[in-house]
């Protein structure tokens, strides 16, 4: 069965610090990979996605993620965080033939001004 593991439950950073959130998945077949963000009081929004091609994908608001197939990882990065990045971040994976999205448990990011 597919599963997604996010290494950090709660991350606290100061503004301008660099961010890396870990995500590992388990699935033997072809997968699609996603990062979603949930700002306080808002709905889940897509940050970025990987389906195929260049393993380094760029998303909105300066976020990027790198798919490393050999490590079953899809870590999220941002070189310099802002206070407005305070939110919950979810990594998700879907098997390419089902569309069923499996989420990790989420990482709460708190950015101090």
């Amino acid at each position, binding site marked *: 069965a597919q599963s997604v593991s996010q290494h950090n439950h709660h991350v606290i950073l100061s503004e301008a610090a660099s961010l890396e959130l870990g995500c590992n998945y388990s699935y033997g077949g072809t997968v*699609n990979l996603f990062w979603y963000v949930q700002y306080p009081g808002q709905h889940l929004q897509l940050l970025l996605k990987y389906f195929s091609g260049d393993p380094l994908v760029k998303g909105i608001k300066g976020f990027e993620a790198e798919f490393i197939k050999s490590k079953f990882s899809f870590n999220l990065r941002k070189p310099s965080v802002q206070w407005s990045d305070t939110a919950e971040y979810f990594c998700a994976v879907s098997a390419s033939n089902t569309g069923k999205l499996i989420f990790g448990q*989420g990482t709460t990011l708190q950015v101090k001004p």
Partner: protein
Amino acid sequence: EAEVAQSPRYKITEKSQAVAFWCDPISGHATLYWYRQILGQGPELLVQFQDESVVDDSQLPKDRFSAERLKGVDSTLKIQPAELGDSAMYLCASSFNSAVSGNTIYFGEGSWLTVV
């Protein structure tokens, strides 16, 4: 930008009562999903529809939960009777077609349920 519409946004109900949530997906989206998100956890899929047909309800507690999408457009999720452990956010989502590679899922704002 088109959105997935859900109602009600908030619902408080007593245990053993019935509760229902409604979802209107983005126009033209064939696939509709209902997820449950317990506080502090990631969303978990309850049921997935392709048009009016259920394609995955393996995680739906069928003794008390039911879902329908009769005309392949909007959908209703019902809980009867509600239990204290059902307190969570119920998310509806839709996508153009889950069978298409590169399918992106769009989420509604969710319906918060508190069972007292």
